[in-house]
């Protein structure tokens, strides 16, 4: 390598004017600095929550409900259990409709309704979460009262467009030849989709669902007027229910130190769960 390049005639060094060289260096430095500024908040937030919240994450945090206002102690068991229930219920709606929507967009591109579904799914993706909370309030809470189910439906609405988008994208990655092979064996189209295309795309769909879950797990705004919150552990989906983001919101805006402490620990737990889910989803999609 070195021998070869030395055999070449010496290349004249490009002569850069000082102005061009300076501009190049300054812009490079600014770009590096900007990147530090962009990444800094994440590190600062994480460090702050670790420092403030880790101490409060004891056994009591996971096994008790919040203490009455003004008293010390207590935990966020009600929120942890509530979040799990609502995410599970939201997944039924979000995954059922989302995956079907993705299959519809990818496998029936000539259907006359296809452009409408595609456009509305994109539109739904951009609608603010709090507006979905208002919608779920008017559709459910107005008639049946605050409930975990109403919260889950609001979260499910938010999941749908994310799942649709990722499902459609991974289904389109499955080669057409695979479908043709299935059809030429005499399989009906629906069996080709269910038995060949979906299994081939399963990894990507799971990744999309996990990303959607990570996204809605942190939403408090649509739960304010639907799940409403509950200081006790509640397993009845027709009753008000708490969730981690709700408790963080209430605690952070509360005047009591104890509630603030629980909110910080809750925030630490929430971002640890969300980071783990998103990293796992990325790792899974990369391994594929």
């Amino acid at each position, binding site marked *: 390598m070195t021998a070869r390049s030395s055999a070449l005639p010496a290349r004249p060094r490009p002569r850069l004017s000082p102005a061009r060289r300076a501009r190049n260096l300054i812009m*490079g430095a600014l770009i590096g600095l900007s990147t530090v500024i962009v990444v800094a908040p994440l590190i600062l937030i994480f460090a702050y929550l670790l420092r403030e919240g880790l101490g409060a994450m004891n056994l009591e945090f996971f096994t008790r409900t919040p203490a009455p206002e003004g008293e010390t102690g207590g935990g966020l068991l009600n929120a942890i259990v509530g979040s799990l229930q609502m995410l599970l219920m939201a997944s039924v709606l979000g995954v059922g409709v989302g995956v079907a929507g993705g299959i519809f967009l990818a496998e029936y591109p000539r259907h006359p309704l296809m452009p409408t579904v595609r456009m509305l799914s994109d539109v739904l993706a951009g609608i*603010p979460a709090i507006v979905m909370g208002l919608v779920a309030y008017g559709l459910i809470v107005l008639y049946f009262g605050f409930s975990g189910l109403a919260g889950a439906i609001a979260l499910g609405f938010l999941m749908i467009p994310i799942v649709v988008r990722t499902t459609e994208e991974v289904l389109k990655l499955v080669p057409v030849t695979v479908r043709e092979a299935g059809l030429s064996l005499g399989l009906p189209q629906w069996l080709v989709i269910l038995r060949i295309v979906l299994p081939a795309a399963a990894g990507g769909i799971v990744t999309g669902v996990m990303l959607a879950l990570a996204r809605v797990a942190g939403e408090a705004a649509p739960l304010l007027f639907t799940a409403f919150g509950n200081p006790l552990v509640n397993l009845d989906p027709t009753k008000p229910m708490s969730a981690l983001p709700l408790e963080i919101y209430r605690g952070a805006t509360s005047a009591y130190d104890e509630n603030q402490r629980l909110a910080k620990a809750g925030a630490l737990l929430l971002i640890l769960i969300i980071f783990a889910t*998103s990293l796992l989803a990325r790792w899974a999609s990369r391994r594929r």
Partner: protein
Amino acid sequence: MSEPLRPRSSPRAALSGRSDRTFQGLILALASVIVLVFVLSVYQLGRESWPALREFGLSFYTERTWNPVTGEFGAAQMVIGTLVTSLAALVLSVPLAVASALFVAEYAPKWLANPVGYLIELLAAVPSVVYGLWALFVIAPILGRWQQGFFADPANLEVYTRCQDIWNSGQTTLQCFFVPSAFDGRGLALAILILTVMILPYTASVARDVIRLVPQDQREAMYALGATKWEVISRAILPYARAGILGGVILALGRALGETLAVAMVIGDSQDIIKSLWGGASTMASVIANQFGDAQERLHRSSVVALGLGLFFLSVLVNFIARMVIARLTPKGIQ
């Protein structure tokens, strides 16, 4: 032994045709839920905000008084608050986001580019309430200390009293806009700051993807002519990626318009006219979060939902513009 091929009209083919139709019907029924959610949203928001819109007409969005006690509701201050916070956050975040995207795509070696890319994506995964909590407990006290320092100076106090007269008369001047009107750090500036951080990752990841799509020979051609790295970026890469970046910026604007709790927690929740960069304000989303639960009176509640309806149409509009921009300006070869 060889059997003749079954004709298409055999019972089995008919069966598979029917089962295909059943499956397609099932998929279509589930996919129609998407259409249903949209229709129900429009219907629900429209029905609930009808009393307010009938009472005030479309001037609901342009009138300045918001007073639950006297039953007067005009959302101009929230509309302005929403636009000001979102656009200011956009202006601050776009250069930073594009720069970080350039760093990941053009400058950083692979061992650094991947972790930095991950970190930026994790920034997008941090929930709104956690940003709000951090801003409230960490950034607000810092701003608050600065504001108290400002008031500690007698000369500044004089400026403040002069500005207060202007503010009380329902106006503000450019000079008074930068005079603090609060002591606790919460207000318009903090809301803009936290929104900036929150929308950074959306623009950054779109910009990074678009920059990576710029064909390699565009770079090589310019390097071969002796261009510096910055010249390649500013003359070959950014013009080529412009449309995609602009689309990402508009999508980030959509996020900023609808961002709720982080803003609601730090903006100070004032429905008066925006007096000072450091004073309280409110956005459409923050008012929904702060007032919907307490709004007992029919007209008040309906007005809050009308804010939601406005926000709904604003986000639909932004979404359409983003898609149009991306479709119009994208050079051939991308997508």
